[in-house]
């Protein structure tokens, strides 16, 4: 294969300088973090940039901390760092487990959460889980800082909604309360997930009633898809959830606008959503999980 085309690497001292560089280089430049997706696309000449702005040069973007009922994960934290973070493992174990299954051990060592979200590869895990968990993204540009909902950040397949001078600095994830349970499951036969499903249930004190639910399916639409109609269907007595889950799966599948593609038929993906939603609910409702 051809070597990578020539580019220069720039090391901003802080976020302000990174924003200036992004604005200055425009379409000829982009942020560079782990490179586990960007460099592959450049290697195949699908993307061309003359300037890579190494955001790892900005100190502190890889921090992980719990504050004000949220876990703040810096955009520069690698999948491996998140997977092994004591804070994430204790307060958001579903996120640690999801990260432990992202790609492979080499990608997890170099790839970052921020890079993953900004690259917006549809066949990916973190965005789907973060959408169901109610995570938000923090971005900073020349005009200041702002917060975006996860579905605002993801604009389409391989597209984020950040303006050209903005840097994703991290995500904030609400720490699930004592009555909340979360699960993320995926189906995968090759190197990328074929379908990912995240479910968060809020239960009553003795676990007999599902008070509220959030669910999202990933990999089958340009961006992960959440369905409030499906979530409303899931709420109700835990013991008789089977039929409601099937209806919810159908509703979620309808909303995701499934299509036939090389990953499988729409019918097959609909079936997988049903299976994974049922299994995810089983995990959430199992007191031993």
């Amino acid at each position: 294969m051809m070597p990578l085309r020539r580019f220069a690497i720039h090391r901003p001292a802080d976020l302000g300088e990174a924003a200036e560089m992004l604005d200055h280089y425009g379409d000829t430049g982009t942020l560079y973090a782990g490179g586990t997706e960007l460099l592959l696309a450049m290697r195949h000449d699908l993307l061309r940039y003359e300037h890579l702005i190494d955001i790892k040069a900005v100190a502190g973007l890889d921090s992980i901390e719990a504050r004000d009922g949220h876990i703040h994960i810096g955009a520069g934290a690698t999948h491996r760092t998140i997977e092994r973070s004591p804070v994430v493992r204790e307060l958001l174990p579903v996120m640690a487990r999801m990260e432990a299954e992202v790609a492979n051990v080499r990608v997890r060592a170099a790839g970052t959460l921020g890079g993953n979200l900004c690259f917006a590869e549809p066949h990916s895990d973190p965005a789907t889980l973060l959408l169901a968990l109610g995570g938000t993204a923090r971005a900073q540009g020349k005009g200041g800082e702002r917060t975006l909902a996860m579905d605002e950040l993801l604009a389409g397949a391989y597209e984020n909604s950040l303006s050209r001078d903005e840097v994703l600095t991290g995500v904030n994830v609400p720490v699930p309360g004592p009555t909340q349970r979360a699960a993320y499951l995926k189906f995968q036969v090759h190197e990328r997930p074929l379908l990912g499903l995240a479910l968060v249930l809020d239960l009553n004190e003795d676990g007999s009633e599902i008070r509220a639910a959030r669910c999202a399916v990933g990999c089958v639409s340009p961006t992960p898809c959440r369905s409030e109609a499906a979530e409303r269907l899931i709420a109700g007595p835990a013991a008789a959830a089977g039929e409601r889950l099937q209806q919810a799966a159908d509703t979620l599948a309808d909303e995701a606008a499934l299509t036939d593609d090389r990953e499988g038929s729409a019918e097959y993906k609909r079936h997988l959503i049903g299976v994974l939603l049922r299994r995810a609910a089983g995990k959430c409702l199992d007191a031993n999980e």
Partner: protein
Amino acid sequence: MSNAKPALVELRFELNGKDVAVECEPQQTLSEVLRNRLNLTGAKISCEVQVCGACTVLVDGLPVSSCTYLAYEARGRRVTSIEGLENADRTLHPIQQCFIDEFAFQCGFCTPGMILSAKALLDDNPEPTDDEIIHHMDGNLCRCTGYVPIVKAIRKAAAVMKEARG
């Protein structure tokens, strides 16, 4: 700007226990520097999309895909390639020896990556379960062995290394 030749950067890092300095361009990958500049051809190039693991080397003890990992990232860090694994007395590292003893390779193309990935595992988790071995090695592909002898070799290497630690 587009035709300007990027400045060469002098890259200094520790390679297999020795300090090296090499001039390279920013877009050069670690495997290009290792294979074409330093004549270390143990890291094999295959998929070039970080899926197969044939190009695995360790940077500060962690496995990376050197085919699409910029050499720039190695500056000031500790790089281990398969050429650096043998012991000071030129005997093989226990993982290498166990791969031989357990017939854990046939054509050998994936083997350097397999062994380095296994080293990263055993350095971090000296007594892994079979499930942990399989989970860790999931991103290293082999088209000869069917993987069973590889898992066996790593399990055996863990035992040999444990005994050596006493």
